[in-house]
């Protein structure tokens, strides 16, 4: 632990009696949320507020030949009916590209489609009315004619000459391509004792948020200001984009983000129907509200995954992995999503495949193509489940091929724990990871030998159980290398402003946001600990671009590691300021004082000298009694951005134990384990629940979730009955363990933990299913989700 106490002692600052670091402190917003007193955007009501509903294209690809608004404009309660062409005079279109993704291209996307709809569900006309119901009624009165165009739906043929080009001005349907060739791949495969190939398919899925996307925009012509109540993960980013496309200055826009009912990466993007809301408010000069309903959420919330990866691994008889090769293909909808682009997931697959293993020979190609389906972009654990699925699937196939225990083969190839810093074959840099310690720990937690014995005993009774592992790495605490260097105005740094109020309580204003994961608890813990007050004396303010330091928000597992460090440093800075004030009151030396549990004490003896509320009272109300020339500064701001490493990689390993009913093809998840290393664990309960929640979303991808489309580009299961989100009854017990390797890049040493669960769970389940079925001669299952039908087919039963 790098944090040094003021008094040299065997204990660190984290062990101070009033330290909250490493404690399962309840989140400060818990009571409010559980009592139904949260402030969701869905609940916001403003005077003169109107509601918008969108007429959405029933076709995946169609020219709009006529829009007749006459009847709709006369509809009950209707305020305005606005077409894409009309709205384009208020808000400019955007193009989702980044300069560091070389060659990525996309077409201008409008807030409401102009002339042409490019996916089923794209908004083609907006109706603003007094109520949402009236707006929906009037949508049915819009006269609209379409000329259906041939949809491009299959990524495999998207680049064929015979396939229509969705955006002719781009020349082809290729959004982005990246290739990588490291080491001597061909030679390595030639010299391998065994080479295994497999094609992995990852279904298209989406993050189903408890609260759908929601936005209220309020253009005030008197102030020339736009206030946006927005369920977003990145308020400052959205402030910039609203301003840019409405032709405003950033200071004319305020984004307010209070409680958000889940996000999972869904709410960190620019949505056409949300951009339309801010434009409609500016056009109509009144507040306009939009809350996506479930049906439109399924066809407009970003989708993710949907990758087909051909993979190849070389291995020696002694278990040494010699080479990896992958060819990834993904279809991302008709537009690259703004501003983070839809090239990142494939880019991550290239970066991360083979990541846990010391193997210098790696070749990759990833192609991202346009198609007439809903847009795809970054969802929790971007690219990780795919890279981990391919890597770990190949590793298990290689282990089976040479007859080696899969845990043993991993142990043979994982980066050694004492071999850091290290650089992966794709160029990714590892500060310090703990693959072997993690593997040892998980094998002990699951009692691997006993589990294998249980598996063998069950097998004798015709019960087929399987054990599957997935070692993984996770990208967290991103620096500017993620988006900033590509030209996006997305902050990688974050700030915290900490203030002592007049009664001795602490306010912290932070640039990160809270969407249910507990970021506010972590901020409070950091400040309470570094400043030295009881945590119930800390009030956390987030989600207001007028009132918090400029920051990135909460995504890519950055809130604790980056926002937490800024809060920690701000707390320390304020402590120095307050000790200076106390010293001047007490006529003591600041170096001889400390703050513990909200009281200024003598350092070393902990003798009480003055309470914080007394310091505050004097500084705020009787500054005349302070020595001449002394000015108390009771507010301090600090910023933090990772500089030493582009990303703080974390690592871990998951294991799944499950049972396959070989008659029905149904899978029953029995147990699940995860050991991960996110460095300093600020709040063990929150970290464990992040891991569990992430695992559930990974299990969803492995067994349940899949956005099904027909060949005409129609989504077939866009509702909560047919799109199967994982539910409690099907979830196994999950045991979480930790290895702690703090990053030296920050004083706190915390790395991110939000996506580790999702990264590894699908691969662990895939490997466990194949472990269960391999002795039965089943074909290896590599296409997710693993439905009963696919399992029965692999068993040759249907």
């Amino acid at each position: 632990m790098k944090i040094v106490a003021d008094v040299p002692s065997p204990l660190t600052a984290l062990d101070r009696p009033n330290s909250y670091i490493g404690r399962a402190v309840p989140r400060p917003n818990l009571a409010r949320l559980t009592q139904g007193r949260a402030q969701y955007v869905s609940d916001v009501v403003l005077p003169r507020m109107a509601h918008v509903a969108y007429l959405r294209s029933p076709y995946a690809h169609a020219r709009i030949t006529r829009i007749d608004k006459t009847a709709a404009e006369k509809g009950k309660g209707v305020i305005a009916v606005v077409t894409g062409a009309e709205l384009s005079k208020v808000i400019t279109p955007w193009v989702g590209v980044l300069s560091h993704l070389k060659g990525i291209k996309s077409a201008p996307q409008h807030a409401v489609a102009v002339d042409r709809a490019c996916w089923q569900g794209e908004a083609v006309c907006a109706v603003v009315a007094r109520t949402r119901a009236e707006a929906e009624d009037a949508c049915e009165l819009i006269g609209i004619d379409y000329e259906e165009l041939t949809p491009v739906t299959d990524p495999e043929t998207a680049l064929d000459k015979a396939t229509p080009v969705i955006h002719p001005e781009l020349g082809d349907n290729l959004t982005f391509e990246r290739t990588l060739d490291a080491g001597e791949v061909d030679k390595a495969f030639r010299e391998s004792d065994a080479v295994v190939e497999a094609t992995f398919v990852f279904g298209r899925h989406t993050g189903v948020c408890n609260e759908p996307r929601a936005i209220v925009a309020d253009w005030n012509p008197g102030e020339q200001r736009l206030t946006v109540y927005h369920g977003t993960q990145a308020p400052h980013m959205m402030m910039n984009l609203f301003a840019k496309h409405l032709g405003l200055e950033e200071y004319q826009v305020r984004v307010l983000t209070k409680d958000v009912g889940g996000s999972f990466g869904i709410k960190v993007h620019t949505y056409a129907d949300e951009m339309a809301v801010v434009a409609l408010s500016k056009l109509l000069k009144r507040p306009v509200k939009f809350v996506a309903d479930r049906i439109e959420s399924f066809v407009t919330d970003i989708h993710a995954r949907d990758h087909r990866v051909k993979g190849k691994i070389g291995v020696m008889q002694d278990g040494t992995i010699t080479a990896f090769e992958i060819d990834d293909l993904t279809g991302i909808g008709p537009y690259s999503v703004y501003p983070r682009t839809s090239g990142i997931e494939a880019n991550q697959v290239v970066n991360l495949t083979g990541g846990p293993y010391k193997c210098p020979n790696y070749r990759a190609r990833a192609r991202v193509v346009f198609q007439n389906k809903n847009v795809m972009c970054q969802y929790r654990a971007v690219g990780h489940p795919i890279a981990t699925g391919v890597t770990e699937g190949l590793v298990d196939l290689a282990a089976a091929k040479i007859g080696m225990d899969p845990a043993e083969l991993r142990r043979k190839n994982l980066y050694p724990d004492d071999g850091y810093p290290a650089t992966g074959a794709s160029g990714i840099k590892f500060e310090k990871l703990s693959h072997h310690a993690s593997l040892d720990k998980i094998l002990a937690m699951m009692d691997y030998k006993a589990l294998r014995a249980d598996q063998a005993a069950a097998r004798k009774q015709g019960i087929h159980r399987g054990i599957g592992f997935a070692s993984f790495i996770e990208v967290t605490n991103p620096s500017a290398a993620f988006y900033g260097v590509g030209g996006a105005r997305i902050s990688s740094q974050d700030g915290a402003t900490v203030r002592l109020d007049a009664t001795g309580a602490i306010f912290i204003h932070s640039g990160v946001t809270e969407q249910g994961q507990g970021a506010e608890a972590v901020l409070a813990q950091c400040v309470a600990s570094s400043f030295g007050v009881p945590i119930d004396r800390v009030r956390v303010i987030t989600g207001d671009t007028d009132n918090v330091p400029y920051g990135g928000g909460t995504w890519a597992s950055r809130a604790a590691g980056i926002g937490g460090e800024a809060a920690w440093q701000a707390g320390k800075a304020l402590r120095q300021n307050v000790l200076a004030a106390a010293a001047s009151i007490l006529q003591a030396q600041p170096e001889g004082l400390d703050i513990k549990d909200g009281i200024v004490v003598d350092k070393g003896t902990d003798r009480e000298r003055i309470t914080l509320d007394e310091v505050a009272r004097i500084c705020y109300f009787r500054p005349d009694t302070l020595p001449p020339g002394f000015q108390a500064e009771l507010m301090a701001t600090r910023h933090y951005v990772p500089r030493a490493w582009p990303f703080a990689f974390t690592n871990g390993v998951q294991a799944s134990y499950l049972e396959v009913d070989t008659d029905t093809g149904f899978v029953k998840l029995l147990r699940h384990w995860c050991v991960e290393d996110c460095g300093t664990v600020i709040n063990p309960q929150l970290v464990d629940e992040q891991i569990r929640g992430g695992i559930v979303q990974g299990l969803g991808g492995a067994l349940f979730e899949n956005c099904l489309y027909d060949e005409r580009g129609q989504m077939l299961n866009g509702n909560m009955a047919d799109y199967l989100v994982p539910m409690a009854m099907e979830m196994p017990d999950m045991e979480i363990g930790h290895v702690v390797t703090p990053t030296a890049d920050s004083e706190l040493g915390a790395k991110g933990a939000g996506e580790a669960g999702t990264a590894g769970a699908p691969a662990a389940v895939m490997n466990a299913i194949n472990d269960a079925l391999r002795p039965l001669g089943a074909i290896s299952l590599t296409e997710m989700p693993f439905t009963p039908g696919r399992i029965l087919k692999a068993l040759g039963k249907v």
Partner: protein
Amino acid sequence: MKPAPFAYAKARSVEDAIALLAQHGEGAKLLAGGQSLIATLNMRLSAPRILIDLNGIAGLNSITLKGGEVEIGAMTRHAEIERSDVIRKHAPLIAMAMPHIAHPAIRNRGTIGGSIAFADPAAELPACLLALGGLVEIAGPKGKRTVKADDYFKGLYETAIGACDMLTGIRLPAAPAASRYGFAELSRRHGDYAVAGLAASATFASGKLTKVRLAFFGVDLTPVRAKAAEMALAGGDLDKAVAALASDLDPPDDIQENGAVKKHLAGVLLRRVVQQLTETRA
């Protein structure tokens, strides 16, 4: 997801409901528990001009044992059936099916009449009605009539209930001593509609199954009897019964699984349900 505008009328009696139906014709829909209807309204998949609310009609939520039959009023909630001793003792197949029906919140509102009238082909209760050879009580403009389960299901969401009719209750034969029941379904998540399911009744004596009724659900446009398999089982040949499903069933593909998988699963379900029908009772 807001429904199109509709009018609302609260029926005071069965006769009142029938009169309102006669008055409004095709544009009217009866509202029972609303667990399917309200979702279709919100998704604008249906837009009735008027909803006739049956929730105020007294006397439609009773479960009684009368003359060797269990009578269940149309407005009886799933949750009431789930907790009923009469059902547990005299209609055990219904009791076996109950935990598979959706989730507690839905069972608190959903009614048996709504389920049988809606006749979702993948729902549990219509199949149970068919497996038990029950009767459906229907009231209409010309009075009351009773329809046998075998004659009740006509097509996808189509039943013997006419446009101006209302289902008022169902009658099930009370379980005789030698009767046996089996129920199994396969759904991707607990509480989902079945990928495939089977409700069965039979008499089991001297190691032999007789009076076998097999009602599969989730495999066709209505719940379906597997009559060739029933005959094979009565002949004591389980393998032949499973093979007979090839002619009894022709499941269409649906969003979860294709017909071939469903047909395979039907065979697995049959073996498991026959095990239930023939296992020694404690």
